[in-house]
């Protein structure tokens, strides 16, 4: 646990070797702070950190392994290559710091650069590299010392959108061949889905969700995650096939459940009409449009009412119904479109 003024980071997390954990969360959730604590740059106020069977921090026993002796690889957003050293010297730095002779360290470094597909860049200075190349050099520099744990803070944020997919694919390949556990911080859901074997969502210093990427995408547990994966999320109490999500607001679901549950449905499952519909849909709620914006080739409506939600409708529907901010509408969703899972 780390306290810093008003902010408290309180996290309990254990990971298996070979796992790629993506830490996802809004700005200020404590993702980077968690990495700094793991890297030993910050000391926890209370708690224990052990990596690969080695205790690195234990406040109860006043134990703190210095950042230089933790063997925790830490690659940050702007990579922090040493600007006055060339690529080989950068990669060999960790080995040199451990007392390895220069020629030896450099031949190791050259082997790592080959592995990273960076032959021919040995004598370049960091400023002569593209973002993707710099990232691979930073990765090689961290991996060459055989870290017990690898930390990546926003590894793709410094890249331009054009080169991101390619670098992301390369990064994924390199992480797959790394035997230890990797923790990646990001706030990009696509990055999380593609890199992670497990996603941990952090909000205001607490873990709010922990699971595989597909679990996360299907069963979000917070508003933040629901927005990221594009779902409307409600929480309520179920009995039978009805979930009470608020005063005078119920959602009908397709299977029988009971107790506290989450209810999720995608915005495109919402049908909008200006008159109360008389179809088969059992979920019909009145509401008022508060915002209208383009969303891909659809139009996304923000609807306020007994059940607030986002609804994606076609531009034709918007025109035919004459929708705009302030329009009173009826929103309906088929029970079969609603996912329900225990809270």
């Amino acid at each position: 646990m780390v306290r810093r003024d008003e902010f408290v980071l309180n996290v309990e997390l254990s990971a298996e070797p070979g796992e790629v954990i993506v830490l996802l969360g809004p700005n200020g959730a404590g993702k980077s702070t968690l990495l700094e604590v793991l890297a030993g740059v910050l000391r926890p106020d209370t708690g224990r950190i052990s990596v690969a069977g080695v205790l690195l921090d234990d406040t109860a026993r006043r134990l703190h392994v210095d950042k230089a002796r933790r063997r925790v690889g830490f690659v940050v957003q702007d990579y922090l290559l040493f600007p006055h050293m060339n690529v080989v010297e950068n990669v060999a730095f960790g080995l040199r710091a451990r007392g390895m002779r220069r020629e030896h360290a450099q031949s190791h470094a050259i082997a790592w650069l080959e592995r990273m597909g960076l032959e021919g860049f040995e004598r370049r200075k960091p400023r002569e590299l593209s973002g993707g190349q710099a990232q691979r050099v930073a990765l090689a520099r961290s991996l060459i010392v055989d870290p017990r744990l690898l930390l990546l803070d926003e590894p793709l944020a410094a890249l331009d959108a054009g080169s991101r997919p390619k670098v992301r694919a390369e990064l994924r390949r390199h992480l797959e061949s790394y035997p230890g556990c990797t923790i990646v911080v990001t706030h990009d859901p696509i990055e999380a889905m593609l890199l992670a074997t497990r996603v941990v969502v952090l909000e205001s210093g607490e873990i709010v969700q922990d699971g595989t990427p597909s679990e996360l995408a299907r069963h979000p547990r917070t508003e933040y995650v629901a927005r990221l994966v594009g779902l409307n999320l409600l929480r309520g109490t179920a009995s039978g096939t009805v979930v009470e999500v608020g005063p005078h607001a119920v959602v009908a679901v397709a299977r029988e459940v009971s107790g506290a549950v989450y209810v999720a449905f995608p915005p495109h499952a919402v049908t909008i009409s200006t008159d109360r519909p008389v179809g088969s849909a059992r979920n019909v709620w009145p509401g008022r449009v508060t915002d209208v914006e383009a969303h891909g080739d659809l139009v996304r409506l923000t609807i306020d009412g007994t059940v607030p939600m986002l609804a994606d409708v076609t531009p034709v529907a918007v025109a035919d119904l004459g929708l705009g901010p302030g329009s009173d509408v009826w929103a309906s969703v088929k029970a079969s479109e609603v996912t329900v899972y225990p809270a």
Partner: protein
Amino acid sequence: MRATKRVSSRRSSILLWIVAIGVVLFLIAPVTIVVPVSFNSTRFLEFPPPEWSLRWYREFLDSGGWTASLWRSLIVGFLAAAIATPVGTLAALGLVRGRFRGKQLIRSALMLPLTVPLIVLSIGLYAVYSDLRMIGSVWALALAHATLGLPFVVLVMSGAVQNFDETLERAAWTLGASKLRTFWQITIPSLRPALAASALFAFIMSFDEIVIAVFVSGVHGETLPVRIFSFLQTEISPVIAAVSTLLLLALLSLLLGRGMARVLSARRSAPRATADR
């Protein structure tokens, strides 16, 4: 409207040029006299020289007094730079990064040599050094000059330390480097250009300082400026012009050398990312 504005702006830019050229001429004028006079063949400071000769350069190089004082100035300058640069750099690191009480006080104290009148400083130093029997010592003078150079070093290095990205040090630590190794291999190399500039400042500061030197250098420890000064009090000879010309040449080559180094290092980094992506 627009036309008159353009005319007036052209007029003011012409005025600017005239003033600028005037200032430069004023600054260069003494040089244009001194340099020809040094190649004079007569015993007098005659301008233009009636005949050309290198005799005053020979006089300078042959007389033991002149070369000895030149050497002494160089040694004192090097020592002063060698003392002021590391001390000022460490002070800058402490002032920029440290968090402690009285920081502002220490910063002001380090800037004092800029504001204390040199003559006051000289009298004080004279009293202290004569008690310590250090009048005429190269070290004593170097130490005094280092004090004068210190504010410049602290100012230049504070800026450099502020611009230095501390997370680079953090990166080195997490790669397993000790604090000491990180300091020598990451911090110092990044500060190198500022270190060179600071050392040059401190050296030049000492090299042409005369007030303190007059007091502290004693009879046998004359630096070049002191020797020129005392020489001028007894006689006027073109050898002074020769000395001045040599000094001018030395300083110019020092500054040109720095400029060249900068251009070369800029060119080395010019072939940027050719096989990009």
